[in-house]
């Protein structure tokens, strides 16, 4: 990846008495698609607003192209934002909304016209120039917001959950479109979302945040396969997270059994968290399994079944394409590459047990978040 464009150094923010960001260090390269991912209240939007110049950090420096920009107001930064609720100007039509930033730069009318037309075709809204903002659908308004921000040719585009208000189908389309716009223009995108799937499918780099701290920075593949702690493992995808011990390199112990694994670099007998992804486990007859247990729940998910298996009072989630009756005994085969060992952290023991799991509860908690 090319050179550093943005650099956040030791950023901390408090509102009243609440600590919002704790010592954030993050650099972003030119042309990169970076996603800040985390549950609501984790500080991701605050981080974005600091970069945009809407909040001044209590401590720490924001560097842009090597220069400190803490004191530069947002209107002088080569950084533009797409707001969660689009924030289009209701008194202007589509054309004038897109031309807004260009007119402030006092560009000649002809150049403005060319740029606006170019932007309209970039976001597939050709011929919409004269339309009133309020007559557009959510997806179209979002496109106008994108065109408006891109028209002023920013170096960095900040996107604050821009697809949150769109329905699923439209969201998928817009994800692809945003990604392709980013690749075509080569602009740095910093994207905030709480949707892990969105983060994994669009980003070059994912920054997982919780509680005002960065939990992990990495490529989508790294984040998924090599989560650093129980929080990341649980937040990105589904995970069974077990209490275990590292006997020595390549050998770990959990669920009352010893397993081969690929992990190294731990102390002998160090207590660890062990992650096993539900899709990495093979279901075998009980007598052939490395561990075995009773199926307590089964949900049909379309592509696969999701079953909950009780093994020594720990409930595992397993994804399998075969049907297994509730109450039947099954065995599990876990290959060395399906096991990921993590150091203990403050999140240990908080996640990864499916004993209280039900779809309903998860949906409820997601709704809570959105409120």
């Amino acid at each position, binding site marked *: 990846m090319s050179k550093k464009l943005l650099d956040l150094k030791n950023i901390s923010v408090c509102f009243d008495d609440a600590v919002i960001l704790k010592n954030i260090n993050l650099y972003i390269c030119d042309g990169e698609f970076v996603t800040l991912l985390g549950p609501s209240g984790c500080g991701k939007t605050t981080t974005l607003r600091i970069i945009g110049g809407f909040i001044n950090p209590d401590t720490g420096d924001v560097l842009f192209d090597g220069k400190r920009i803490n004191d530069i107001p*947002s*209107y002088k930064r080569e950084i533009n934002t797409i707001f969660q609720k689009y*924030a289009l100007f209701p008194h202007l039509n589509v054309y004038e909304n897109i031309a807004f930033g260009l007119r*402030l730069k006092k560009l000649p009318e002809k150049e403005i016209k060319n740029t606006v037309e170019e932007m309209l075709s970039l976001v597939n809204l050709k011929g919409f120039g004269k339309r009133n903002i309020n007559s557009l659908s959510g997806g179209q308004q979002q496109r106008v917001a994108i065109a408006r921000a891109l028209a002023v040719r920013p170096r960095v585009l900040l996107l604050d959950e821009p697809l949150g208000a769109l329905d699923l189908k439209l969201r998928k389309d817009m994800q692809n479109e945003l990604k392709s716009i980013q690749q075509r223009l080569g602009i740095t995108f910093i994207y905030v979302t709480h949707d892990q799937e969105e983060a994994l499918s669009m980003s070059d780099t994912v920054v997982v945040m919780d509680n005002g701290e960065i939990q992990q920075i990495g490529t989508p593949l790294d984040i998924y396969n090599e989560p650093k702690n129980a929080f990341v493992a649980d937040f990105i995808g589904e995970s069974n997270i077990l209490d275990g011990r590292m006997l020595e390199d390549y050998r770990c112990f959990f669920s009352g059994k010893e397993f081969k694994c690929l992990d190294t670099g731990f102390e002998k007998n160090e207590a660890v968290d062990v992650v096993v992804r539900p899709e990495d486990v093979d279901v075998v007859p009980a007598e052939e399994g490395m561990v075995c247990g009773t199926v307590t729940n089964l949900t049909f998910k379309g592509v696969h079944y999701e079953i909950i298996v009780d093994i020594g009072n720990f409930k595992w989630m397993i994804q399998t394409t075969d049907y297994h009756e509730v109450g039947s005994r099954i065995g599990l085969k876990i290959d060395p590459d399906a096991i990921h060992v993590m150091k203990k952290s403050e999140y240990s023991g908080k996640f990864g047990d499916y004993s209280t799991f039900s779809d309903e509860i998860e949906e409820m908690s997601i709704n809570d978040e959105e409120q």
Partner: protein
Amino acid sequence: MVKKRSIAQRLLAAPHILWSVLFIVAPLAIVVFYAFTDAAFHFSINNFTRLFDDGTFEVFTLSLAFAFCATCICLVIAYPLAYFISRANKKTQNTLVMLSMLPMWMNFLLRTYALSFLMEDTGVLNTILSAIGIDGVSLINTPGAVIFGMVYNFLPYMILPIHSVISKIDKNVIEAAEDLGCNRFQVILKVIMPLSLPGIVSGITMVFVPSVSTFYISQQLGPTDFVLIGDVIETYFKSAAASSYHLGSAISLVLMILIFICMAVMNRFSDDDSAGGIMV
């Protein structure tokens, strides 16, 4: 959407309709009837033609000019005030709005009377002025005092609608404007002003209309022989002469039409859908 209304719905509307007919439509019809008849109740347009001969027309112009001045001053004072109020936090906003409404809790006549008392040649203001060495200033009985009275009395009507519109502007829209390159001043000019236009129009209406037809302020604060159109109407309706009700009605009607035209022009400036003009 045309929907048949149930009997219950009609009954619910009945008091309102009855009220409107009794106290809005009927009086208006009577005013129109009086305006177009002479003392013997024969049809006549003499009431209107007379307006141009006896100097009433000049009073009209003067009233409109005074109301215009008062409205402009109100706008200039109220807009920045409303803007700063709306930038304060919610609690402070409520207090500030309440403070600006406070004078309205007192009776209008009382307020004006108090004002005349303050501005008397031997009143509090003049006493203070002479104490700091400014002597012989006559505050009361000047046209300026009349305009001051209008501004003082009607300012809250300007602050309130503008504040309510500005405080409802989406904060994100303002941030978006800053984000796209607006400095503080440009944000106000290019985003907040256009978006608060409905409030401005509504405020202008609510100040202009009562200003143009007021009569007590000019009597209390104006020069001795100073009359505005409201005073003329009042005089006619208090007079015992046979034709005075007819003349008064004619002037009222003309005033109504003039206000209506002014408002129609004003409303053209605001969005069609944002129902700016509230008639009072």
